[in-house]
């Protein structure tokens, strides 16, 4: 019986099938992020004004913008749009467990800063679509080029999200944490 079924099988068909399976595997894996029903970054971004930092309400069973959002964190979020020029972002990571992250609207993280255990960390960044050029000495590759400046971040896409996460040590700290998050800014960059 087994031989009757497997006897006529052709190995070249099996090889072609394996190759097609491999192609399907690769294609479906790369398409999966685009086919996701609602991308996390899009879901948050849709309600946010561009280039403005917004402190989100605490996550709870009644208010949870994203799945698996930590109830032990408070979040400040900015939907940046660098289409009209660079965006300046400032935030203070005030305590252990705080972090700063940049995401594309596809939800890919591309820049992250942790807090320091012993001291506050100030994050001051300029987000732009292309690396700034040094008009004076850049062509001579003289001295420190702007590309080496850690405060400049070249964006992979025009739009995305800035997320500041603040660890919530307890209800007694809520006002202090909200004050820190409320002072975080995200606005068009004004050089000078």
């Amino acid at each position, binding site marked *: 019986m087994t031989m009757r079924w497997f006897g006529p099988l052709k190995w070249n068909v099996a090889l072609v099938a394996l190759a097609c*399976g491999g192609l399907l595997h690769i294609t479906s894996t790369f398409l999966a992020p685009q086919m996701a029903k609602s991308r996390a970054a899009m879901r948050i971004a849709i309600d946010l004004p561009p280039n403005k930092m917004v402190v989100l309400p605490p996550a709870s069973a009644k208010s949870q913008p994203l799945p698996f959002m930590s109830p032990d964190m408070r979040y400040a979020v900015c939907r940046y749009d660098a289409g009209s020029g660079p965006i300046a972002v400032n935030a203070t990571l005030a305590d252990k467990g705080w972090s700063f992250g940049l995401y594309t609207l596809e939800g890919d*993280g591309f820049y992250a800063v*942790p807090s320091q255990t012993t001291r506050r960390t100030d994050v001051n960044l300029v987000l732009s679509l292309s690396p700034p050029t040094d008009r004076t000495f850049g062509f001579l590759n003289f001295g420190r080029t702007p590309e080496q400046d850690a405060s400049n971040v070249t964006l992979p896409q025009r739009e995305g999200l800035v997320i500041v996460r603040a660890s919530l040590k307890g209800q007694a700290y809520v006002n202090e944490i909200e004050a820190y998050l409320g002072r975080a800014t995200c606005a068009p960059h004004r050089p000078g």
Partner: protein
Amino acid sequence: MIPNLLMFAVLAVAGGLGSSWYMIEKGSSLTTRAHGPWVVWTAAGRSDADPYTRAHFARRGTLPVSTSIALTYEANIDSDKRRLHSACDYAIEGEEPSAAWWSLSVYDEQGRLIENAAERYSYNSATLMRAPGGRFSITLARNARAGNWLPSGDVGRLTLVLSIEEPQVSGPGQEDAGGQALPRIRRLACR
């Protein structure tokens, strides 16, 4: 003819799509590390994340913290490999993670926080009650318990998430676990 067509369909469609689904949903040793019931996606939230990791988090609709900052472990099963369920009570116990900050939260299968009158969804390194010596125990149960009680409601399957920020690495080969033992999840009783 028919056996060849069947073989083609199984290998090409089921094999190709099925293996892709498995690698995205469950991961493999290329993309995840398991420590008992706890699983971490090692490239979550990173710019160099592989396509499986990117697809996994895109499908779940989450924005993961970079693993260069925090390791986020998930558990859907207990330490005896039985599915976590709100019909059962569990003890989550062990040594406190040696980290700048950590938290343990419980969600339903879809990642929603579980409604409860106490509005208690998690414990963290600042809110947990510990025994002398740093050991701790959290009871995951539907009804209130003394000590560290994490309500599990009546939602069916559960997911625990343990986030460890800036884990202290103690030796080669232990980087992904932060060089420490993760808490054990012990089933106490079921209704």
